[in-house]
Every structure is written in C-alpha cells, then in structure tokens.
C-alpha cells in the first residue's frame, strides 16, 4: 500500500503519530494515577496505541502484510477473549501472562534483527551500539518472558511446588555467566546458529530457574519486576529499530515499574534481594518461632453477628480468602445492614491484601463498596484500639502479631494491621491450617479472638441472617 504514498510524507506521518502516541501514553499513565481520572487514562493510552499501530502499516519497504495482519488478529482476539473472561481475583496472573508476551515480543524482535545483521541487511547496521543493545534487550526480554510464564503458572495453581536443589544459586550463576559469554559473541563476533540458539535457550532457562524457587506470597513483587524488565527490553529494542515511541514508552514503564517493585517490596518488608535469592512464602521456613500458647476458640456466626450489630465500631479486614470465596458482595450487604443499625463500619486494607497492592481495593470496588469507607494501614491502625470488633475475613499474615513480637519469625518487622488490639476479633477462615506463607498466626490464639470456620460466603450469609434476626 506504500506505493501510493510519498515516502517522505509517510515518514512524517509516522513520526507525528509516534510523537502523539508517546504524549498520550504519558498523559494516560498520569491520569491513571488518580481514581477519578483513571478510567479516562487507559482510554487515552489506548487511542495512542491504535494510532501508532495503524500508522505503522505505512512504514516504507515493508512486506509480509498478510502475515502481520493475521498475527495481530490472532494475538489480539485471543488476548481480548481471555482478558474479558478472567475473574477479578485472577487479574494478577493475567497481568503476568500479558507482560510475558511483551517480553517475548521484544526478544523476538531482537532475534530477527540479529539474524538480519548477520546478512548485512539489518535496519540497525548504521546505528552505533545497536547490536549490543539488541543483545541486552534480547536477554532481558527473554528472561521476562519465561519468568512471567512461570509466575502465571504458579498463581494459576498449575505449579504448586517450589523447586529447589543444593547448589542452585551456584548453578544459576554459572548459567548466567554462560549467557553473558554467548551474549558477547552475538554482539561482537560472527556468531553461528548454535551460539544464537544457545543464547536464547539459556536465557529462557534462566528465567525459569530464577522464578521456580520463589514462593507464591512473593509473586506480586516478581511480576512487577518482570513488568519493569519488559519495559526496559522494549526501550532498548526501540533504540535498535530507531523508534522513539518504543524508547519512551519502554523506559517510562521500566522506571515506573522499578519504583513500583520497590514500593511493593517495602510494603511486604521483604528486601528485593531476599525475594530473589532467599526462600520464604514457601511453607518451609515457618517452623521456628515462639511457642504458640492457648488454643483456637470457635464461635457461632450468628453470635458474632449479634456482637457486631450491638457494636459502635467495626473494622473489617478483608483478605484474598474472601475474594476467592466471592464473599465481598455478601460482606457489603452485611455492612449496609450494620450501618443502618448505626454501627460505624470501615474496611482496613493492608498494602499487600489480595495479591498485589491495590488488588483488594479493586475487588471491593467491584462489590460496590464506596472508596471513602476503605482505609489504608497508616490511616486506620490507631483505630483498632477503640474498635469493638475487628472482623478478619480470609486474611492471615497481614494481621499476624508475630510481625511485632517474634523476632525469629520470617515476617518480623513487616507492617501489619493491629487487629489484635480490638476488643473482639472474629476470624472467618476455611480451616485450621496455616495460610499462604505457612506461618502460624498468633492472632488466632489470642484470648479475645474467636474463629468462624467455614466458607467465607456461607459465613457471611449467616452473619446477614444473624443481623437481620434482631
């Protein structure tokens, strides 16, 4: 279709469209950082994406239009379908999956460019250091690709086990050194097909090796890290292809993602190095610690409901377990009943409630909870001392007082919600086992704690019935 268009005009149109896209991406992300404008933000960024994609068809000297359109169609429809279908609770792993695709795409671009440079035809043969950056981008993108897929498999529950073997870190280091050597060969020498295959194969393997020892609890931080890495890879490949829109968008995401990763790691009190190189959240580090004294005491949900109905202030601490049981709608119904009886009800959200910072807010918003009833850790923590009831639903580690008391606990020092300071604590829990991280929760054994065992949705239904019966 290019024959009909003056190449100069086409070039100008492409430059203008990419410039527009870059502006829309930045403004879109900016708007996404405030709740009232967030919705518009993604639409703006989306317009930028459509404009950039359509105009890219005008790029001079291209062929394979059929293949291109087919690939966009297949990839787009599959992603659209899965994205529409997925439940809100499963969002984190879908983000991991789509992010992995982006990393894979950046790596594949690098592969094509490297192959073409070998024959002296590459787009980037006159750009300084393009080949080196292509190799670096390929490495980062490939690791983000295979690592994200493992993260997806783990959160999806396809890979429950944590794989470890003695000398694993030494082995990983050796693999990494091998990748670096191969990378130098690709960047600086006349490499063969075997170098090429070995480089990408080992990079894929490294992404897997890096991710399999990491437990589910740490996965959000890892996904965020891979998101940042994909951004970097896209930025570098943008340089290789002389494409400023990719450079800007990629690096903006790379730096924003790095900061977000740090914020998440901080919220969980887990230095990034611990997440990547030490095991936790895996179930095998929770054995030690102070002796648990006392016992778990059960309570009938209807009795708990009556206590709440006569309370002045109730603080609800929702966790991922509530979302899995799809109990948020019932809990909101119960909240409205309590409010109509004059009880002050607020929701207290730990930064890592759900699977990621902000995930729980999304889930509550889905149920219709207005955001002025939802409070962050710092804003609500002093309130527990004056609360009559703290209702913990499907949350575990984020209310474990061991983080304050037990220096030997793996979560010692992690900021927690001080639910134990409320007059009464009701914990809705499926069974007596330990949670996601495998750490015994001291809160469950406190004198003022009562357990409501059962599926969160059933228990919530009983709460509603109990409140209504008054």
């Amino acid at each position, binding site marked *: 279709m290019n024959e009909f268009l003056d190449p100069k005009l086409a070039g100008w149109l492409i430059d203008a469209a990419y410039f527009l896209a870059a502006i829309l*991406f*930045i403004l*879109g*992300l900016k708007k*996404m950082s405030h*709740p*009232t404008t967030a*919705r518009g933000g*993604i639409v703006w*960024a*989306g317009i930028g994406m459509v404009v*950039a*994609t359509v105009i890219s068809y005008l790029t001079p000297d*291209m*062929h*394979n239009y059929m*293949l291109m359109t087919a*690939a*966009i*169609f297949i990839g*787009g429809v599959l*992603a*659209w379908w*899965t*994205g529409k279908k997925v439940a809100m609770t499963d*969002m984190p792993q*879908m*983000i991991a999956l*789509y*992010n992995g*695709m*982006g990393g894979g*795409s950046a790596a*594949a*671009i690098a592969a*094509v*460019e490297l*192959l*073409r440079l070998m024959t002296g*035809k590459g787009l980037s043969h006159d750009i300084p250091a393009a080949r080196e950056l292509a190799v670096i981008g390929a490495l980062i993108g490939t690791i983000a690709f295979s690592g994200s897929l493992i993260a997806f498999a783990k959160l999806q529950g396809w890979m429950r086990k944590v794989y470890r073997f003695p000398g694993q870190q030494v082995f990983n280091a050796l693999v990494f050194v091998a990748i670096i050597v191969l990378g130098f060969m690709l960047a600086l020498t006349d490499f063969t097909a075997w170098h090429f295959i070995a480089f990408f194969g080992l990079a894929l393997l490294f992404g897997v090796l890096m991710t399999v020892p990491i437990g589910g609890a740490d996965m959000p931080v890892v*996904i965020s890290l891979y*998101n940042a890495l*994909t951004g970097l890879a*896209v*930025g570098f490949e943008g*340089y290789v*292809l*002389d494409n*400023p829109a*990719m*450079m800007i*968008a990629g*690096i903006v995401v790379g730096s*924003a993602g790095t900061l*977000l990763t740090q914020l998440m790691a901080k919220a969980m009190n887990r230095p990034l190095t611990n997440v990547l190189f030490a095991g936790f959240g895996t179930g095998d580090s929770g054995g030690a610690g102070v002796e648990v004294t006392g016992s778990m005491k059960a309570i009938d949900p209807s009795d708990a409901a009556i206590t709440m109905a006569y309370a002045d202030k109730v603080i609800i601490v929702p966790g991922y377990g509530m979302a899995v049981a799809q109990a948020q709608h019932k809990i909101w119904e119960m909240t409205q009943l309590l409010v109509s009886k004059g009880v002050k009800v607020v929701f207290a959200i730990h930064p890592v409630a759900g699977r990621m910072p902000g995930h729980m*807010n999304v889930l509550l*918003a889905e149920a219709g909870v207005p*955001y002025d009833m*939802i409070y*962050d850790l710092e804003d609500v923590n002093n309130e527990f001392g004056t609360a009559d009831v703290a209702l913990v639903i499907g949350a575990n580690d984020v209310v474990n007082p061991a983080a304050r008391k037990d220096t030997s606990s793996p979560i010692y020092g992690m900021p927690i919600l001080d639910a134990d300071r409320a007059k009464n604590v009701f914990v809705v829990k499926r069974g007596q086992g330990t949670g996601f991280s495998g750490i015994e929760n001291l809160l469950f054994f406190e004198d003022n704690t009562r357990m409501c065992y059962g599926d969160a949705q059933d228990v919530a239904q009983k709460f509603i019935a109990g409140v209504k019966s008054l």
Partner: protein
Amino acid sequence: MEGFIALYIFMLAAFTGYEIISKVPVILHTPLMSGSNFVHGIVLVGAMVALGHADTTTEQVIGFIAVLLGAGNAVGGYVVTERMLEMFKPSNKDKKGDAS
C-alpha cells in the same frame, strides 16, 4: 539516531516514569501496573516493522511470533486494565484516607 540524543530520551523518560508513579495512591497500584503493562505493548509496532522487513522463513516465523505476542500484550493489557478501572466509578463523595 545519534547516541547522545537517545541517551537524553532514555534519561527524560526514566524521570518521567518515576514522577508518574511516586504520587500514586495504593488503591491504584494494581491497575497502574496493569496500565504500564499495556503501555509497553507498543512493542507491537516494533514487531510489525521487524516482520515487515523479514526475508527468510526463519525471520518470518520469529517475526510472526513477535507480532502475535506483541498484539497479545497490547490487547490483553488494555482489556484487563479497562475492566479494573471501570469499577472506579465517580462517586458523589470525595475519597479520603487512601493517600499514601
């Protein structure tokens, strides 16, 4: 592109990304991560250019995969972000307490 101009672009883009995220309330972290995941879906246009210049079958196959994955990143990232943000309907009351 001249090397130093590229460096300037990288530097300014890095500061921009940092600035955007540093003032975000916690409630928007997941949607924003998803949104930034969508934004690097721009890799799609690079994949199109790479496939558009591919000659051998190997290059075409890898280019095809690149476009396929890039389109998945962009479309999937958009759909899930949009679905999450859809829930942040404007409320008649101003929100408070979630600034961090």
